[in-house]
Structures are given as C-alpha cells and as structure tokens.
C-alpha cells in the first residue's frame, strides 16, 4: 500500500469511526430515554417498544450514510488501485456495517431485558399473593401462577377461572422472550461474522466453494443459537426444552442453506 492509498484508508477509517461515535452518542441518549419511559410505565413494555421502532429508523440512517458515502465518494477512489486494495475499502465498510448492527441490536436486547428485570420484584410479589375463591374466599391452589387456569376450590367446590396479574403475564410473556433473545443474540452475530469470513476466504481463492466442514460448522452454530434461545426460555418457564421448535427452525435453515448445495447433499448421503 503506497502513501496515497494509506491516506485514503485512514480517511475512510476516520469516517467510519465517526459513524460509530454517533451510534454511541445515540445509545447514550437512549439510556436516559428508556429510564424515563420505565419510570413512567414500569409494567408496560409498549412505550419502549414504540420508541425502539423510531430509533431503528434513526440507526438505519447511519447505515444509509455509510452506503451513500461509499457509493458517492469512496468506491471510485478505492477502485483506482488493484483489486486487493478495493477489497480493503469494501471490507472496512462491511466490518463497520456488521459492527453497527451488532452493537445496536445487542443494546436493544439488553434494554428490553433490563426493563423486564426491573419488573421481577413486583412479579414475585404478585405471584406470592394468595388468590381467594370467588365464592368462599378460601385460597386457591394455582399450579403455575404465570398461566391461566380453571381451578376448583378445595373448600367449596366452586369453579374459578383465574387469569394471572398483568405484571406476571408481561414478565413470563414478553420478558421471557426478551431474556432468551438477550442470551442468544451474541451467537447470531458470531454467525454473521463467520459468514463474512467465509466469503472473504472464498474471495481469496477465486470464489472456491465453501468446504463441507465449514458448512457443518455453520449448521452447528445455527443449532447452538436456537438451542441457547430455547433452553433459556425453558429454564425461565420451568418447562422442558421445546425440541419441536428447535427442529422447525433448523429444518428451514437446512432447506434454504445446506440442502440446496449438491456437494453437501452428496457428503451427507442425501
């Protein structure tokens, strides 16, 4: 890389760093915003979800800025060098885009997780509160307090339809989903990173096909994602791991990513 090329790389890196800094600033502002919304509606995740939709658009603008700048001002300059130099600029762009998406998505997942975590003391208290029979007032024995039940009173035999407190419903509904995503999402971005590395490996070898071992690794990483997600849910709900759900996700993955590759099919005896 000559001095001129090095200067171009530095300028491009400087621009991408500015985008990252702007993302950090937005996240910092969001921390305060989420705290405010949580204080206003501590048991209602809807305001934060709505804010996230608006914030997603703001983050997409940062991503668009990278694309517009590359297309309009940078790509032509990197094209002046050889193919390898062009790839340097392109890889920097892709790295920045991946990092931006990962940082923002993981922050969102943590923010939602934090929101539901602050509900736990109230959820716990609501679950511990006795539920009296509508007819005689005797405490009912509800097997799983986070689910709706039809309970027959042991004292008077009256049938009670029991719906969990809103706080409990939110925690074991949206909360469990948020905790599972928070746990599994880092794996999703490891997969994204891995796929990017595979592309670069192929590019460096004149677009040689991906190895079967690499595809198997991809499969295992994907399985790890869905298993981690499902195990977290199962743990929180005190329920068995939903193997059917994992298989449904993996069957789609295999169908659209592996089984359409004849080499992989042959290697697996399909």
């Amino acid at each position, binding site marked *: 890389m000559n001095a001129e090329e090095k200067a171009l790389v530095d300028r491009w890196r400087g621009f991408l760093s500015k985008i990252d800094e702007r993302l950090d600033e*937005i996240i910092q*502002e*969001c921390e305060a*915003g*989420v705290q*405010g*919304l949580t204080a*206003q*509606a501590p048991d*209602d995740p*809807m*305001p*934060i979800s*709505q*804010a996230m939709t*608006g*914030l997603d658009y*703001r983050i997409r603008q940062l991503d668009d800025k990278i694309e517009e700048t590359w297309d309009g001002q940078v790509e032509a300059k990197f094209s002046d060098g050889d193919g390898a130099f062009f790839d340097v600029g392109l890889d920097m762009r892709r790295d920045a885009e991946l990092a931006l998406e990962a940082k923002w998505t993981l922050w969102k997942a943590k923010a939602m997780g934090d929101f539901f975590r602050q509900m736990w003391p109230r959820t716990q208290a609501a679950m511990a509160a006795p*539920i009296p029979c*509508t*007819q005689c007032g005797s405490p009912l024995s509800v097997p799983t307090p986070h689910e709706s039940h*039809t309970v*027959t009173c042991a004292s*008077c*035999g*009256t*049938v*009670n*339809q*029991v*719906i*969990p*407190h809103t706080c409990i419903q939110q925690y074991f509904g949206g909360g469990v989903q948020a905790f599972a995503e928070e746990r599994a999402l880092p794996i999703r971005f490891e997969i994204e990173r891995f796929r990017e590395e595979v592309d670069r490996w192929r590019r460096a070898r004149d677009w040689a096909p991906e190895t079967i071992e690499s595809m198997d690794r991809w499969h295992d990483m994907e399985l790890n994602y869905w298993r981690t997600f499902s195990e977290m849910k199962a743990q929180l709900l005190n329920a068995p791991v939903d193997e059917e759900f994992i298989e449904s996700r993996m069957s789609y993955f295999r169908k659209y990513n592996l089984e359409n590759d004849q080499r992989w099919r042959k290697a697996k005896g399909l």
Partner: protein
Amino acid sequence: MLDQLTEQLSEHVEYVFRSARGDGAAWPEAAQHYGVASVGGDGPAPVDEVRAVFEELVRRAGAHLEQLLASGQVEGGPRVEGIGRRLGDLPARETARYEQARVDALAPKKADVGVASIFANAAKTAANNPWASLTFDRQLTQHCASCGAPQRQEREFQCEYCGGDVFRRGSDFE
C-alpha cells in the same frame, strides 16, 4: 407624544403581523378593524390584504401625526421627519417581512438529530393505547342464570341444583 405614537405604531404592526400569520387574532376580524375587507378562510392571510392593512395603518398614523403638529402638541424637526420616513416605507417593508415569514414556514424543518422527540412521542402515544386503561376481573366464576348457583364442575354447564343453564342464553348464542 411622539414616543407614544411610535410605541402604538409598533404594537399595531405586531398585531397585524401575528394575525396575518395565524398566531394572534383571527385575520378577518383584524383586517376589518382597519377597514379592510378580507376574503377570510383558514391559514395565512393573503399578501395583498396584509399590504392594504399596513397602508391603512400608515394612513391613520400619518393623520394622527398631522393632528399633533396642527394642534401644536409636537413640533416639527428631525424626529418627526424620521417618523415620516418610517411611515413611508412601512407598508413595503412589513409586507416583505410577512412574505418572507410565509416562505420560511413552508421550508422543510431541520432534521431532529437527537432522540428525545422519539421518547417523548412514545410516552405520549403509549398513554393513548386502548389497553392502557382497560380493567377486567382476573377471576370469575360462572353462575347459573336461573338460580345463581356457582359452576361446580369444569366444562359442565347445567346447574346441579336446578338444572338451569350455567351461562346466559341470548341473542349472542342463537
């Protein structure tokens, strides 16, 4: 006296300006106050009506100044000449200011680079969601529509006491 005249003139100009932009009194009434007929309607006032109002305002202020001079309450001099010049170009100057304000109002607003507005909007609209104020019984027991006895057997909808229906028959079910 001259101070009072210039002060009142400024107040009138501001009153006309704000009414014309829609920030103050309704424009048709404001125009009528200066003897100018307005075609009315919502939104900013038509430019020619605003100019006509400023011209009438200047005419009245000029007449008042003439009265003050004629009655000897004020004497001519540089200050009176200055006020005269101000009155002379006031309609053109203030009408141009009004036209510019109309153009500025139409220009796209500068993008909000912060995220405070997003959170403020979320907080505001969340309070409007139809579920926010919804209340319902978390527990209920079905009762016989005939004798009022509670349901005693899950998925059994015939009262064990009187044989009546443990739900309300009505148009919803027929």
